[in-house]
């Protein structure tokens, strides 16, 4: 930077008439704006109006005029009231969905960290395993997930074995473990019914969890790669066991990634179209009078709740996250 800074200074000396504030810093900041220009334009011209409109819709009713036009009628919190008190399912689904999310997120983060550590070790066939583990991120999204969901739905509606068993969704035929098995395992440990159910759900949901932890695995892998091997080496010399090394070195070094991944998982799971609340919103959107605006109101409420969760996550994590370099 210093070398480059001398150039304009020399130029300024040669031509004193030039404006003084035409400094390198200013030029750099202008090129910064230039690089970000597409996003700034899009954000102002497309995104903000969309967000603004969406909030506007949630506070109004759409009245269709003759022809292709429409106008909005401001109704205050009417839509929110309808979503919260008139709709029978919304609050229930919301609470259930958030509860499910709070169970799934730790499972996804822990699983992806574990797999990332495994895939980071030197072994035979590492490249092949890596290739296999990233298949779901690429292939099991959108349309394919929808087909899987419809197969599972069909199976659920028509009873056992009505669909080819693809093992993709928790279904009657493809349960990996039974609640009974785990109950037997936990027998005498004095743990509640709830925990047994949770553990069972997580294990049966393994495909779902593997499916949803692809990007997180990548991020963890990147984080693991950036830890200097010298640290591990010195640990080994000092006689630390693998267990100690993990908790004293890997875990603190990877903690920023854990935060990033937790937040990413929250966002990912609540924006994905196949979670219960999103499905409900989608259903409300397509039926009933004013379904569209009520759906908007629901979506914004859902968003606020999730934002709250992310905020709490970030606050808690801030106390524990260790940053290697501060800038």
């Amino acid at each position, binding site marked *: 930077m210093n070398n480059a800074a001398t150039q304009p200074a020399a130029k300024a000396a040669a031509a004193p008439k030039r404006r003084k504030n035409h400094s390198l810093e200013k030029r750099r900041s202008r090129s910064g704006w230039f690089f970000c220009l597409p996003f700034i334009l899009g954000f102002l011209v497309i995104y903000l109006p969309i967000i603004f409109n969406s909030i506007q819709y949630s506070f109004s009713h759409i009245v269709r005029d003759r022809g292709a036009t429409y106008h909005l009628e401001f109704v205050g919190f009417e839509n929110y009231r309808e979503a919260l008190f008139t709709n029978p399912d919304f609050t229930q689904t919301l609470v259930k969905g958030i509860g499910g999310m709070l169970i799934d997120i730790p499972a996804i983060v822990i699983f992806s960290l574990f797999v990332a550590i495994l895939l980071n070790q030197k072994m035979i066939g590492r490249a092949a395993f890596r290739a296999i583990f990233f298949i779901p991120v*690429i292939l099991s999204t959108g349309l394919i997930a929808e087909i899987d969901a419809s197969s599972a739905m069909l199976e659920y509606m028509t009873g056992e074995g009505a669909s080819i068993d693809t093992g993709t969704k928790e279904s009657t035929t493809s349960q990996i473990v039974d609640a009974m098995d785990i109950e037997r395992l936990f027998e005498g440990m004095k743990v509640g019914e709830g925990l047994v159910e949770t553990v069972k759900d997580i294990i049966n949901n393994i495909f779902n969890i593997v499916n949803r932890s692809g990007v997180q695995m990548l991020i963890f892998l990147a984080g693991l790669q950036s830890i200097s091997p010298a640290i591990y080496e010195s640990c080994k010399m000092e006689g630390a066991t693998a267990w100690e090394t993990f908790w004293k070195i890997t875990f603190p070094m990877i903690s920023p990634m854990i935060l990033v991944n937790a937040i990413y998982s929250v966002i990912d799971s609540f924006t994905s179209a196949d979670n219960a609340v999103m499905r409900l919103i989608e259903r409300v959107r397509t039926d009933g009078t004013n379904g569209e605006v009520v759906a908007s109101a629901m979506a914004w409420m859902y968003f606020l709740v999730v*934002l709250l969760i992310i905020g709490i996550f970030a606050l808690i994590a801030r106390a524990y996250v260790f940053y290697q370099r501060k800038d």
Partner: protein
Amino acid sequence: MNDQATTKVMKESKNKIKVEFERTPLLQRLKAKFLNTYFLTNVVWYAFRLILLLGISYVILYPFFAKIAGSLMGQEDFIDVTVFLIPKHWTLGTYKAIFLENHYMKAFAYTFLVSFSTAIAQTLICCLIGYGLAKFKFKGNAALLLAVIITMVVPHGTVQLSMYMHFRYFDIFGLFGLLNKIGVWNQSFLVNLTGDNGIWPLILLSLTGLAFKNGLYIFLMRQFYRGVPDELEESAYVDGSGTFRTFCQIIIPLSIPMMVTIFLFAFCWQWTDNFYTELFFSNAKKLVLMPDIVQIPSSLVTTYAGKNLYESAIRNTCGLMIIAPLVILYLFCQKFLVQGIERSGLVG
């Protein structure tokens, strides 16, 4: 001379140790080698790891095997209880019917056009924005990053309706509407971007870094560029290269693995996307896209006992045919996928 002497001494002592070692019987030597905790824990750990990885790989791959098996089965196999994974009546009829009757080639060509153009646009634009955010300190840098994160956090499902309306009656700050009123703009109403050709909203979103998951791409690129040392650009500046030229000639070649990763994500997610396709292409009946081929070909419609099962298998076959090109792309690009992320230095 001195050096030679020391090496000679070392060699001799080494030989001595070797002799000592060989004097101990084989059984003891093997015991010492294999019956210690270090070796045993390693063996256990290797076995555990291998079994675990194989198990998870099985969980991931099994659905694909099941789908492939189902796609090759004839109608009779779905009511036969003894058939499990291995078809008795092999047939390629399902593939053939989908290929010919569901306009597979048309859907392939048009989806390729949409996915390729948007993925290229997204990759380049996210590259630009990520570079701008990572390497330049200007007022509003932090605010811009916050804006990127906001676009990532607000799900597009939430703003679905207003997004559709925005592109249905496309307008920039009411400018077109104003022109309409004065009579300068010669269109009957605002520009309808969702009309016959629903690709324009997607292109616009891609060109402004607002399309599906673009916040993630921008974030990844930014982290990647933060790991690139500043000295690289500084030396280019000293040699008289401008900002943009430095970006094109030095930074872009550096970030190829990362760009391939993002291209792969963008392409595949657009390829299997149904949210935007249904939102923006709803009026465009002429065009056939990938979501349109997921239906039962008319020649395969039956009413026999295994109908549900058979139709589910056909739908899954459609899914297989949709992802087949992606598998080929993935095989070529997966090397970059890990490489790109590994070099990004994502910490911090």
